[in-house]
């Protein structure tokens, strides 16, 4: 399959390298694929030494499957937010599709076999979400994500099961793009992730994509395991430090900003304004 896997890395430690190793292993051990995807590692410049060491370790460990040519290293000297890292890495993608694998997550072993099947059957789709199981640090399942589009009640009478639509998305915003198979050309056409949007940037991207007539489909296979509660992860930080009114603010802002293609500066004053009833 003509696909690259982007792995954004914003921190590094021996402990995290174990998780990263599992993530890489989930790519290497894919069933029934002719060729492994290209691995695009994007990282802050200060981690370069660590990442090169990690890459070399992977090549030694999986020498029959991986070589230096299988890796594209993207050193990020600018904004190291998740969104900026992904946008930067996409510039180095040379394949038609890409998928973002968070370094503490894993693909299922049949993921790319299935992805190839869905891409072939639905060439008109721009974003293939995957059903993901979210787990805690004890590897216990917490919830499924991206599955609700398969409920007719959710997509509405005029909606089609499996396809995300804007109306449904605004009602229920919890869709994740991790692990999704994304057409690179469409990602770039609609402007990629917005770095000015916090917390709700995936929702904003999906809504903007739908507003721009992109087709988004959820593959009905559990193809991705997402570690949802890792101490120090991006969303763990939001969960612990972001007050409820700010979360609400970001989702409302994302809904509005999805009408604009460019990454506009967000007026935060509304968040801090006291509302007197």
């Amino acid at each position, binding site marked *: 399959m003509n696909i690259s896997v982007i792995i954004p890395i914003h921190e590094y430690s021996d402990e995290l390298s174990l998780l990263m190793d599992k993530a890489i292993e989930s790519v290497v051990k894919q069933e029934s694929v002719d060729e492994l995807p290209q691995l695009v590692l994007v990282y802050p410049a200060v981690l370069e030494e660590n990442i090169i060491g990690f890459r070399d370790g992977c090549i030694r460990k999986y020498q029959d499957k991986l070589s230096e040519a299988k890796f594209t290293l993207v050193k990020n000297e600018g904004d190291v937010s998740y969104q900026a890292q992904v946008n930067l890495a996409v510039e180095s993608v040379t394949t038609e599709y890409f998928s973002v694998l968070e370094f503490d997550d894993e693909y*299922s072993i*049949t993921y790319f076999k*299935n992805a190839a*099947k*869905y891409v072939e*059957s*639905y060439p008109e789709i721009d974003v293939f979400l995957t*059903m993901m199981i979210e787990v805690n640090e004890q590897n216990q399942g917490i*919830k*499924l994500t991206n*599955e*609700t589009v*398969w*409920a*007719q009640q*959710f997509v509405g009478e005029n909606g089609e*099961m*499996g396809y995300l639509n804007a109306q449904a998305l605004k009602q229920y915003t919890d869709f994740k793009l991790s692990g999704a198979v994304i057409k690179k050309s469409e990602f770039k056409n609609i402007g990629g992730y917005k770095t000015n949007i916090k917390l709700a940037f995936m929702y904003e991207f999906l809504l903007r994509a739908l507003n721009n007539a992109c087709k988004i489909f959820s*593959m*009905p*296979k*559990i193809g991705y395991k997402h570690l949802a509660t890792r101490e120090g992860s991006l969303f763990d930080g939001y969960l612990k430090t972001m007050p409820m009114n700010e979360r609400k603010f970001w989702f409302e802002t994302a809904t509005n900003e999805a009408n604009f293609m460019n990454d506009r500066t967000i007026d935060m004053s509304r968040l801090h304004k006291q509302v007197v009833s």
Partner: protein
Amino acid sequence: MSMADPKLTVGPEDVMVIPEVYSNVMEQTKNLPCVRIGLLQSVDYMINSLIPGTDWSSFGIRDVITTSQTLREWFETFYGKGKFNIKTYNVGIPDYFEKSSAPQKPVISVIGRNANEISKLVKLFFSKYPQYNWVTFDPMLTKSKPPQAMRRVDFAKRLQGNFAAVWVDRIASFGTFPLECMKSGVIPICLKPDIMPDYLLERDENGNIIKVVEGAGVWTENYYDLPVLAGEILIKFLDDSILPALYDSMEAVASKYTQEASENNLIEIYSEIINQRAKPLEGALVPPTAPDAQAPVVQ
């Protein structure tokens, strides 16, 4: 038969095949000079249309066509072995029941004779698996208001897109739907009916049952297993862990029930019947139809 004067005129060279549900027709036509054959497809329809103590011999019927060896055995058990001349043929599943080239959806077709049983099992499924409350059970009706039954070819098209199908029909005499599923690559999850479907039985060359076929979908004798089995199959579908062997077994079973084989089987049966019927002497005038032949209008 003239539309203006709808009287049925038949002679010994004619053959009349009467489905089991029309025992009144069997009774009304008992004095006709033609060959009459009872067609048995549904045990329940047959029994419901007979008064106690009668059978088809009461109407002068000796020839029976039925759709499986199991039905033949059932018939002989209750109406006498050797009393009737029974012929069996295999039901054929049309070729438009085929596997989808597109991946299947996490949707479960659900077909049953009793609406309450269907509703109950769907509710039990959602109670046991609240995490799968997004799964759709498809009653296989049109999307019009009110929903209608579909043309069979449309039914086949819809069926192939769903990954599994639950079937509850306790009084089925053959069980065509699970076969349609197997041919379409859809996993049937079924309650065993009172009469075991013939395709689940493996027989030796003498027709004796030697074992139950494995892998022809998922079958249970306990109705309350159905929602649990549907959940287990769903989990395997989502995890992509359904073994190819299951699909291979389903295909092997369904491949015995092709339309072509069924038609050839029927041609053989009817050719034999036609060849055995009384023939008018060549050159002789065909006698006028007997008075009794003017049968009442068939309802």
